[in-house]
């Protein structure tokens, strides 16, 4: 089966610019996650969708980050405006029903903010 797709793979922007990431989960997976992984740390959950509804966004910096999941399938994560500390790998994952199901991760987008 096809895995989780993400684009772009790499992005370099200047601070205060905006950026968007796209994720296409595994077909039929109801739950979609966006994680931020800063160098030397583990993935930190930013937002979790169940179909097209938000289950958890408690760690999403809502003043600059936004995310949506269109029709319960694809998802986009946006940062506007970006800060230097947003430099990280942004991982998208999906699972069949919820957190207790195996999460399948995409390759990630490496963002560098200069």
């Amino acid at each position, binding site marked *: 089966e096809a895995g989780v797709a993400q684009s772009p793979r790499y992005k370099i922007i200047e601070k205060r610019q905006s950026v968007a990431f796209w994720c296409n989960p595994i077909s039929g997976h109801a739950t979609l996650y966006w994680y931020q992984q800063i160098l*030397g740390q583990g*993935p930190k959950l930013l937002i979790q969708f169940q179909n097209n509804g938000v289950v958890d966004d408690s760690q999403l910096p809502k003043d600059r980050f936004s995310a949506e999941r269109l029709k319960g399938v694809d998802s986009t994560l946006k940062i506007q405006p970006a800060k230097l500390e947003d430099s990280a790998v942004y991982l998208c994952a999906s699972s069949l029903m919820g*957190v207790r199901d195996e999460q*399948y991760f995409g390759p990630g987008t490496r963002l560098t903010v200069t």
Partner: protein
Amino acid sequence: AQSVSQHNHHVILSEAASLELGCNYSYGGTVNLFWYVQYPGQHLQLLLKYFSGDPLVKGIKGFEAEFIKSKFSFNLRKPSVQWSDTAEYFCAVNYPRERDDKIIFGKGTRLHILP
């Protein structure tokens, strides 16, 4: 606050050595526990998980982990490592009865196996 600690940030072993990577979570109660692995150039993938039942869990590629409730631990073990086990390993915890029903990842342990 809910958290996961992985004590070893970087481990170097020779092939055939035994492996144990430590993982502790912050407090008791019902937990679901996971080990994920990221091989060089590959995506994060599930190695094994524990929800309930036998506290000794077997995963892929000869890995196992033991849930010790009294120690809040879920250490990963392998009796004899191979060069192909070189990877980064992440322990993760989920508290299913808490309001924040999400997975929390540790900082990871980078394992390097010498051929």
